[in-house]
């Protein structure tokens, strides 16, 4: 039933790709005159050889893909990518403990940005570059990258694409999946380059500008500074990063329309309008709260509110202020935002704006249906009735999301964490955000979590990034039954 050869072959190619990306850290280390460039060479070589070992013996067998293989390949790719991604951390001994290294790597790939590092600024430039790069790769998706490199995946590609892309209904930009992947990556690259230029133009060094651009566009949130973006006390940098976090959280299809001058299409997209609406509403509330409780001026209150709201809503996870020190009702607002996520088709995690909107609309329509039991009252999105099956699948997703979050919080509490920390850690990892609340709040990190807890949270990050079903289906007995 499973086409083992094809699965191994494709996973091999994915590892080879990863190895080459590891080698990108070599020139960085050399530029800064750091001796660990050899470690990156070695890590890349190990990864590439492992990939070749899987790929070469099978390269002549025909590729066959069915639906099941798609799920196995996508989940397998993310786990393998994370496993081998630990090598640079382990070999350079920046993170000597395997559990910690794996947590840091999968947190990177899934664009969560939850860190166990207490000494970020002590690490070499090469290691920190790799830490940022893995977020960038994970942001747009490893499979999407592979589709670009593997022309032979043409037909099965669509299945892999829809299993990985964070969206209830993936859009194609071009008849060929490969060209769609090419366009998406190009937009991603362009955004990243523009942000680098703008940050560099501010008072951020080129190296930091690159690293932060990589993690902003991925809605990842790894910073090269222990204090995150708060390290730079520059409104310009805060605003630039806010703008790009916002862009990273929008549907990349819309960015494609924008580049083709079809601005009407962007505004006609209802999800986009809700996205702006949610950001606007929450920012207004938090600004008012901070202005009256914080004692600072209106501009800093607005800037901090906007930055934190956009960062948490898009699941990036940078911080310029410790919201754990805010008034409790503002903390609750931030906590609620953790259950939103970016737009569908963006690099953001979480449940996605579209699902939230469909769920909210369906719930309010239910009230109408109670008064008019015989009326046909569909949920409308973009002025079109959403198909019943899509609504059902959205509701199933939200139910699963709540269920997994609930159970996971209980598990974390059972592992000895206090209530705030358990709730915060689960919300932050399942939603791929990064900082949570309690002992994993913005000022602290995940290093104190129990080892079992770190593995469990790693699993949650993967489940969250692949939008629950791709991973969960592997755990269902139906999948393995003939």
């Amino acid at each position, binding site marked *: 039933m499973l086409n083992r050869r094809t699965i191994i072959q494709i996973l091999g190619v994915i590892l080879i790709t990863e190895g080459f990306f590891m080698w990108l850290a070599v020139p960085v280390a050399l530029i800064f005159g750091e001796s660990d460039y050899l470690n990156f060479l070695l890590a890349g070589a190990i990864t590439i050889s492992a990939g070749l070992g899987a790929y070469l013996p099978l390269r002549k067998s025909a590729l066959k893909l069915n639906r099941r293989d798609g799920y196995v390949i996508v989940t397998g790719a993310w786990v393998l990518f994370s496993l081998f991604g630990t090598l640079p951390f382990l070999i350079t001994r920046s993170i000597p403990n395997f559990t910690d290294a794996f947590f840091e790597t999968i947190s990177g790939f899934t664009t969560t940005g939850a860190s166990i590092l207490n000494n970020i600024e002590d690490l070499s430039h090469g290691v920190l570059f790799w830490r940022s790069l893995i977020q960038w790769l994970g942001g747009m998706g490893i499979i999407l990258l592979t589709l670009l490199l593997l*022309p032979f995946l*043409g*037909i099965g*590609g*669509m*299945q892999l694409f*829809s299993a990985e892309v964070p969206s209830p209904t993936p859009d*194609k930009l*071009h*008849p*060929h*999946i*490969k*060209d769609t992947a090419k366009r998406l990556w190009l937009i991603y690259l362009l955004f990243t380059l523009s942000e680098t230029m703008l940050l560099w133009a501010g008072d951020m060094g080129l190296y930091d500008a690159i690293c932060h651009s990589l993690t902003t566009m991925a809605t990842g949130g790894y910073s090269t500074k222990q204090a995150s973006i708060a390290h730079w006390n520059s409104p310009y940098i805060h605003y630039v990063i806010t703008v790009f976090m916002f862009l990273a959280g929008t549907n990349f299809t819309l960015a494609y329309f924008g580049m083709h001058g079809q601005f009407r299409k962007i505004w006609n997209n209802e999800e986009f309008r809700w996205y702006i609406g949610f950001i606007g509403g929450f920012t207004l509330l938090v600004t008012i709260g901070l202005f009256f409780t914080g004692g600072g001026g209106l501009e800093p209150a607005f800037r901090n509110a906007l930055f934190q709201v956009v960062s948490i809503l898009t699941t990036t996870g940078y911080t310029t202020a410790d919201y754990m020190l805010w008034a409790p009702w503002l903390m609750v607002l931030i906590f609620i935002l953790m259950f939103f996520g970016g737009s569908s088709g963006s690099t953001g995690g979480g449940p996605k704006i579209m699902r939230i909107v469909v769920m909210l609309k369906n719930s309010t329509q239910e009230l109408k249906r109670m008064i008019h039991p015989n009326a046909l009252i569909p949920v409308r999105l973009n002025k079109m009735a959403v*198909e019943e099956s899509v609504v059902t699948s959205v509701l199933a997703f939200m139910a699963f999301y709540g269920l997994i979050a609930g159970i996971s919080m209980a598990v974390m509490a059972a592992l000895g964490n206090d209530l705030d920390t358990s709730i915060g850690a689960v919300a932050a990892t399942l939603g791929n955000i990064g900082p949570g609340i309690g002992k994993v709040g913005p000022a602290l990190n995940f290093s104190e979590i129990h080892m079992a807890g770190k593995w469990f949270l790693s699993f949650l990050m993967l489940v969250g990034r692949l939008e629950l079903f791709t991973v969960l289906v592997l755990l269902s007995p139906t999948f393995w039954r003939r």
Partner: protein
Amino acid sequence: MHIVIAGAGEVGSHLAKMLSNEEHDLVVIDNDGDRLKTIGSTLDVMTIEGNANSITQLKEAKISKADLLISVTSSEDVNVNSAILSKRLGAKKTIARIDNQEYLLPANKEIFENLGVDYMIYPEKIAAREIVGLLSETGSTEVVEFGGGKLHMYVIRLDQDAPIINKSLRELAPENNGLEYRAVAITRHAKTIVPTGDDRFQNGDLVYVISSKSGLKQLYKYSGKKQFEVRDIMILGGSRIGRKTADALGNQHYVKLIEKDRQHSYALSNMLSNTLVIHGDGTDMRLLREEGLEKMDAFIAVTGNAETNILSCLLAKHLGVKRTIAEVENMDYIPLAEHIGVDTIINKKLITASRIFRFTMAEEVTSIKCLTGTEAEVMEFIVKPGAPATSGTLAEIEFPREAIVGGVIRGKNAFIAHGETHIKPYDRVVVFALPGVIHTIGKFFN
């Protein structure tokens, strides 16, 4: 090529399947979301849910950049309209599927050209023509003509009595020396291979043979097939195909046509003066016997129902009818029906697809035919000067193993190709290709 296919019905889906590869950008428009979902998840194409008559949706499909619009929805009106709109919106070439003989008349050709419909396909008419052709070539299940009849490809099903059973191609080669035919492919258990010298023929094989007209007699001798004269024909079903076939055959043959619908039977008997139209149910086996099924030379079942067609053909075969032809529109039934003994399967989709496929191939392809029993195709190329194929003999030019040059037409002569054949510019070559290499072999002749 940027190709827009309007209509994801059976013909549309089949075309999408054939055309989806690296070279073409395919967009499929249909108003049935479920159909599109099936296509979108199995093929690398873009799908748009909507009406093929809507200008907005055609624009969304980038019709202005389209090299070809293929309109094959179930409605003739939509097809013609969509072709007209597309042409005005910038499509380079348009094809519409129609079901109206009148539109095809040469006198009306100009009307449609002015409107912007470049080519019209009437599948039922082509199917009828194909059936008539098959009745004159009774030994093989399918015949394809090349170079205006200088070469043919015959498809022959081997049965127990064929003298070549269990012999390998190599063993047959000395006997065949200088013969005018060559087996280019074998379909066995629904899988098609290009045979090497060591492959042996087996009972039930479908063998594809390229032959000149003079080689046919010997070909039949070796495959144990006999040509026979067809005189009495029974056609089941007064569908458009049935009517067209009866119309074409009525003058030279005794044709009986059985139609279920009484009103329609009357209409048919008015239209077909040389055909005996019988009103009755084709699934009623007693009626078929009463009408003398066992005395027929050929039985053609073209009701709209594939099961009825297959079963009645089996009955005819059982009663000793030598030639049975069934219309089967369900693709999955085709290998099965051929396996259990129906001589030839007619499929409108494949016929239509063959016709349309030609428009998507490069200029050097002069004809192409999608075969019924296999996914492979047979094509005729014109060799350009300086093409890689002219650089050496066929054994030297590293032609892909999944394809084979079967014959060459040079000027007025036609001959069968072998390893030592050296292709020259302006030759017409007949190539049999398995699906994987259909789009790559063109470069050998360009």
